[in-house]
């Protein structure tokens, strides 16, 4: 598996560290209910198919990336720097 990093180009997966699902958004810690925190910490969609996930390019540009990857084929649809993605979501 190779990931096309927007800064470094196509790189081997060994250069990257996986965190997990990029979907969950941390609720405001002071205002959040227990149920909302439980949902954020523990529950996952875990789809078979396209999955947006966080990868860290520690062996290259040191940037967090949101990679849209097919969990059935390991094919990669898109790679976007996480800060740009998160800013767009706010």
């Amino acid at each position, binding site marked *: *598996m190779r990931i096309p990093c927007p800064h470094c180009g196509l790189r*081997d*997966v*060994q250069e990257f560290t*996986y965190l*997990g*699902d990029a979907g969950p958004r941390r609720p405001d810690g002071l205002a959040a209910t*227990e*149920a909302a925190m*439980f949902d954020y*910490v*523990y*529950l*996952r*969609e*875990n*789809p*078979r198919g396209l*999955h947006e*996930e966080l990868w860290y390019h520690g062996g290259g540009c040191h940037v967090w990336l949101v990679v849209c*990857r097919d*969990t*059935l*084929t*390991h094919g990669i649809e898109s790679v976007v720097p996480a800060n740009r993605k998160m800013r767009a979501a706010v």
Partner: protein
Amino acid sequence: MRYSIFSLVAEALKGHTGWQPAWRDAAPKAEYDVLIIGGGGHGLATAHYLASRHGITNVAVIEKGYIGSGNVGRNTTIIRSNYLLAGNTPFYELSMKLWEGLERDLNYNAMVSQRGVLNLYHSDAQRDAFARRGNAMRLAGVDAELIDRERVRAMLPFLDYDTARFPIHGGLLQRRGGTARHDAVAWGYARAADSRGVDIIQNCEVTGIDVAGGRILGVQTTRGPIKAKKVALAVAGNSSRLAAMVGMRLPIESHVLQAFVSEGLKPLIDCVVTFGAGHFYVSQSDKGGLVFGGDIDGYNSYAQRGNLPVIEDVMEAAMGLWPGLGRVRLLRHWGGIMDMSMDGSPIIDRTPVQGLYLNAGWCYGGFKATPASGFCFAHLIAKDEPHPLAAAYRLDRFATGRLIDEKGAGAQPNLH
């Protein structure tokens, strides 16, 4: 037909012309009392214990492929009960006891071999942690022996004791642990369940789960609708997909775990050995191949195949432990999809849908648990209350904070 030395001799004299299929190839009926989704080890064991211990025989096991095509045929066949935490130790010890009587119970040779499981330690701190684990096991009535480096050397003289970066200081040995022939476990449970009237329906994939008023009605499958009073999910690897059919999200991610087998060799290693300084475990099959594995690949995956970096990582650990393996050729490798739960422990519980039961989250420790998982799941389904030894495996423990985290890795499934 009961298998015995007499049936074997009689068949040998008849030229082996009289053997019958070990189970019927059943077609789905319109309705069952209990419908088990997933014809793997856990699903088939559940059917066997429902029929044999609870007298519930109007049962079907439906499987999307052929039975044994999932994780029960994709593991490294290790059985053990060397767990630390109170929620786990008695459950896995029940499993070990069921393994010890399995072949008589099923009238099937599952090749259960109590050849011993040895976990190596490589530092003083790790020795202390293993001593604690061994003591916890012995307090729970499980056998455990802490052995020093010279006793390990007497058992396994070919390991790298001194020159490696992680010298071997000793090991924690569970003599009752060992291996079992994984396919035979699936086949033995299938045959035993079938002989009591359970229908085993292969090539039948669930496409929907019917619920009305918070109660289960049945399922939609590629071979038509099937009604059921109770439906039980035993589909580790795909639990999230089936739970999504009733609108549930689970504290589970699906990950791929690879396993490997070498070319056949003469008898070389007579126990199961795990490397304590990396993630690597090895045993030798009765055919002579070395069977070994390591870490999961580490990213969500439903592909039953992994990638090269983890293969390299496993081979490095192998060489670190046992340099002679460098001369051995790898014969094949494969991948299975694991339900990685948020605390590394399984779930055997009811769900918010009345009559729908969940058996999931086995991470990569499901094979050894097969008998106890089926035993406790059957108890839950039959009596609608958890078996005392599996009572900790609740679905709501993540919300209430009663986690069972052997590794202390937290809610990060790829680290368990």
